[in-house]
């Protein structure tokens, strides 16, 4: 009996570690930007290309910045969630059209509806790089002082919105 106790306990520990490893998502890389000021940008707007979209105009507001593209698959699953959130009016969503064709982006918003208060265009993907985006969709919660409070990698789902985004936004609005 004693002979098997040690190998068995080692086996159990290894299985435990591997089990934890299976539940982790290797795509979710913790962002060093959470807790830091959101990078500055000033990008042309999607609808009115003459106008500029800059986070400086949003100081004093809690808002979401959502990186999306018409070519992005995950954005399709996310779109209805964003539409519902926009309709609820709990937090304004600002969009950043990431490395996209203008015509296709406009068609996308016409078909699926436009959940965004404003859409900026990041054609070269530079704003994306400054925000540490490595796959759309990604969503950032930005507070009144312009500090990034949360980063969602991949599509938002109703559960994450209800359990993480909304409580965080409410808490940040009190500050």
């Amino acid at each position, binding site marked *: 009996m004693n002979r098997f106790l040690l190998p068995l306990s080692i086996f159990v520990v290894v299985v435990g570690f591997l089990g934890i490893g299976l539940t982790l998502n*290797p*795509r979710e*890389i*913790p*962002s*060093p*930007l959470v807790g830091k000021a959101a990078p500055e940008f000033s990008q042309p707007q999607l609808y009115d290309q003459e106008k500029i979209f800059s986070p400086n105009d949003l100081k004093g507001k809690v808002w979401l910045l959502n990186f999306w593209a018409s070519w992005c698959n995950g954005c399709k699953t996310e779109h209805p969630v964003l539409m519902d959130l926009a309709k609820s009016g709990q937090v304004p969503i600002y969009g950043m059209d990431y*490395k996209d064709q203008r015509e296709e982006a406009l068609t996308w918003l016409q078909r699926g509806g436009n959940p965004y208060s404003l859409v900026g265009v990041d054609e*070269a*993907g*530079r704003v*994306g*790089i*400054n*925000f*540490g985006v*490595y*796959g759309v969709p990604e969503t950032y919660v930005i507070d009144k002082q312009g500090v990034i409070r949360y980063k969602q990698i991949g599509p938002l789902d109703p559960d994450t919105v209800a359990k993480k985004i909304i409580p965080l936004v409410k808490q940040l609005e009190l500050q």
Partner: protein
Amino acid sequence: MIWVVLSLLFLSGPVWAGEAKPLADDPVAEARLKHLAVELRCLVCQNQTLADSNAPLAEDLRREVRDMIAKDMSDKEIIEFLTSRYGDFVLYRPPVKATTALLWVGPFVLLAIGATVLVITLRRRAHKVVDVVVTDEEHRKVEQLLAEGGKRS
């Protein structure tokens, strides 16, 4: 006719040779980019380096690194630019920090555990092997048996 075909074949050689464009005009900058890019991880295809990957983000990041090289920024500044956005994860050689201590020390800890177990096992085994005392009587018997064996053959 055959001469026309042959001459066309030979003439087309240098034209084809011009097809593969160099990645950048400056070979020194390109060498620096390569040197940096093999140390950096592509975040889309996580097991590829920034140099290997064809992912659009990797292309963009190579473009950014190229721009920074053109601006004469140091390797340290360039790596800081990337880690401030993507974290230590972009580095194939993570820095020694409290969070990465297990990663760096882990293999040596396992080696030490293995060595300790080996030493303990060997010592225990050494205890089990006891010198058997052979009495004079037994010794004589063995010699007799051996002598008998010698006679038979």
